[in-house]
């Protein structure tokens, strides 16, 4: 039995199994060669002799292995760097697509179709953990180890600048893609320093969900400005049905959602976070008005107190329970809040509009996903062809139909059949038309931390709006000007 173990161990995990054999039992006197025995002191009782011999054996085996491992560490296997951008590459062959989970199987279907037509250039799906942080971590680790495991990356648009600046993704030949058919604001999210590094796969923008039933009762239209919204809330509060219904909420917890909501407040007041030249611009009067809206909302009770902890799902919970009159949310809430299985109290009772602003309609932040090619990947020619196929209008249509993800293609929003199925499409397009990407900063992690830190301090009442914005301006500038 032990012999089996040992022979097996020679090809698999030798260090451990052999050690097991050494310690697990003492029934292997037969292994001890006479020379070893004599070295160990032949006159000693056999038991002690074996002990020692076994010891020497284990030590030498371990030492040899350790040396081998160390030798393995020092040899540099990744010395050759793949040369050139994808434009020059003619390499073809199997590739991978690294993306968040394929919940509905649509992605796999699309890959299967590609693989059938390209048997020598098959694409394998690599699914990454759900959380955005985890996905980013995997992408970064892949780049750091210069691994060729991921070929095509499905990236959050805010990461494009960082990945491009670190040269982890290649510039792509913009002319090869149908970028002119896509919404210009969305195409912009794939650019860095005027060059195209990524192709939009899908996009997203915020919408104002409102309780149509209550607005109808007070004869109000969906608000265009924050003031109109507050006025409507005041009227609804006087209704008997308005009891326990709070005015407005967005995503105000201290996480990426706060950056989105703060950016929207500032842009909806006419400001910017970062200007055309890439300088931070949050110490402006417009930015102040934007943050003031968020701060006042908590002070005057426009926002429920608990909304300081809201992420997307917490807000949906409140909205579906009929506790919110207005809610800034991504389009996904449409289907879920319309569910008629008893889980939503507001099914059929709500409408959607574009976000309100200071003096007129507001501007949303952009979400979505972009496709890029990893610098360290092989077979980049295949990767580009695949991206053309994968980000095609036809596939975008399927994705909308099956997963309700917003397509980057402008024409799909005007398609009557799709509009019928997704009544929010027209409104979503309006929102997308004016939407802005979150600040394209190379050190996006530091930038978003600076924004969240100061904005939440102001919203919690720990800092005045002026102090918070001065601090944010300082930290944001520091994040932009690399040291």
């Amino acid at each position, binding site marked *: 039995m032990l012999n089996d173990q040992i022979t097996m161990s020679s090809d698999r995990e030798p260090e451990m199994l052999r*050690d*097991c054999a050494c*310690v697990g039992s003492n029934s292997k006197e037969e292994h001890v060669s006479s020379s070893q025995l004599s070295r160990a002191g032949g006159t000693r009782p056999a038991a002690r002799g074996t002990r020692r011999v076994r010891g020497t054996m284990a030590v030498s085996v371990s030492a040899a292995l350790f040396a081998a491992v160390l030798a393995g560490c020092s040899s540099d296997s990744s010395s050759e760097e793949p040369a050139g951008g994808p434009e020059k590459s003619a390499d073809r062959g199997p590739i991978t697509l690294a993306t968040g989970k394929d919940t509905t199987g649509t992605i796999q279907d699309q890959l299967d179709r590609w693989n059938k037509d390209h048997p020598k250039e098959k694409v394998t799906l690599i699914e990454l*953990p759900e959380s955005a942080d*985890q996905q980013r971590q995997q992408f970064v680790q892949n780049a750091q180890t210069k*691994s060729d495991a991921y070929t095509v990356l499905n990236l959050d648009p805010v990461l494009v600048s960082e990945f491009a600046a670190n040269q982890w993704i290649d510039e792509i030949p913009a002319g090869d893609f149908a970028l002119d058919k896509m919404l210009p604001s969305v195409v912009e999210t794939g650019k860095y320093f005027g060059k195209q590094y990524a192709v939009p796969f899908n996009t997203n923008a915020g919408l104002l969900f409102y309780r149509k039933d209550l607005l109808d009762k007070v004869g109000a239209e969906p608000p265009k400005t924050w003031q109109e919204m507050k006025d409507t809330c005041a009227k609804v509060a006087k209704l008997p049905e308005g009891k326990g219904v709070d005015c407005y909420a967005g995503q105000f917890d201290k996480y990426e959602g706060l950056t989105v909501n703060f950016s929207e407040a500032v842009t909806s007041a006419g400001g910017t976070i970062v200007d055309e030249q890439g300088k931070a611009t949050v110490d402006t009067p417009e930015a102040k008005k934007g943050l003031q809206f968020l701060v006042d909302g908590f002070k005057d009770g426009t926002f429920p107190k608990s909304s300081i902890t809201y992420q997307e799902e917490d807000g949906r919970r409140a909205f579906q329970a009929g506790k919110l009159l207005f809610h800034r949310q991504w389009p996904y809430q449409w289907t879920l809040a319309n569910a008629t*299985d008893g*889980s939503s109290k507001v099914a059929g009772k709500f409408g959607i509009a574009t976000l309100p602003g200071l003096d007129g309609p507001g501007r949303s932040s952009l979400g979505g996903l972009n496709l890029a090619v990893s610098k360290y990947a092989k077979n980049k020619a295949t990767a580009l062809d695949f991206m053309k196929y994968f980000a095609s209008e036809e596939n975008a249509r399927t994705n909308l139909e099956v997963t309700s*993800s917003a397509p980057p293609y402008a024409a799909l929003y005007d398609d009557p059949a799709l509009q019928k199925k997704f009544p929010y499409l027209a409104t979503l397009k309006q929102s997308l038309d004016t939407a802005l990407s979150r600040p394209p900063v190379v050190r996006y992690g530091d930038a978003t931390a600076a924004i969240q830190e100061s904005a939440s301090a102001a919203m919690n009442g720990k800092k005045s709006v002026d102090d918070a914005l001065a601090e944010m301006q300082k930290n944001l500038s520091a994040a932009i000007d690399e040291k």
Partner: protein
Amino acid sequence: MSTTARTGHGRSWVRRIGIAAIVAYCLAPFYWMVVSSLRRPADQFSNALVPSPVSFDNYAAAFDERNGFGRALFNSLLVAGTTTVITLVVAISAGYAVARLDFRGKSLVLTLVIACSMFPPITMVVPLLELFTDAGWINTYQAMIVPSMSFALPLAVWNLSAFFRQMPAELESAAQVDGCTPAQAFRKVILPLAAPGVFTTAILVFIMSWNEFLIAVSVVNERQKMTSNVIVALFTGQYKFDQPFGTQMAAGVVVTLPLVIAVLVFQRRIVDGLTAGGLK
């Protein structure tokens, strides 16, 4: 072992309350997990103490063919099981050396071993990933097993040496005089007596490696080789923002319960067997 349990029947109600309190303490949050997993996905925001209607949709979703959750459970079992067996063997030998042998530098050995449990694991991921990439270990089981072992070894070595040290040394000597080799004496006398310690260490190692996520998520990107923890981390809602809380909780129940049952079965078979052998 049963002798200690016999002491004093007088205040059995105190004991009963104690048992009830502990069971309640441990199971209340778990109860919430089970309840959450048995709601319809649409009811995931409900705070009702009993799910109504009861639905197994979340379990169906967790075991959806595309998730490969069954396969992942098998992988977890393989990785954690192998880790446990090898870790135990390695740690028993080291623990025995530390507890029973007189050699110089013993405190240094113990210090070095425990020092390996002092570095924050998150900073070790990237160097390990480089190491494993060079060794061609990406997408292999050993890339998960070996790190799990190293995370569990310090505890196992320290714990086992503490237990071995408590065993009366005279027994071992007596056994050797009876004609046992030192190894036999160790295996037939010390090990059975220390069985509760060995077995507890085994449970702890198994659970530690069953729960390992940080390394597993980084060194494996092939579905076929992913452990259940990694698969659960992939669960998303259909629309990206909706969190499939119910399904995640169902997966949690599925990941936890077999572990608990397995431990109970093993306990009966192995520990009670070993201790009985040593004592009677």
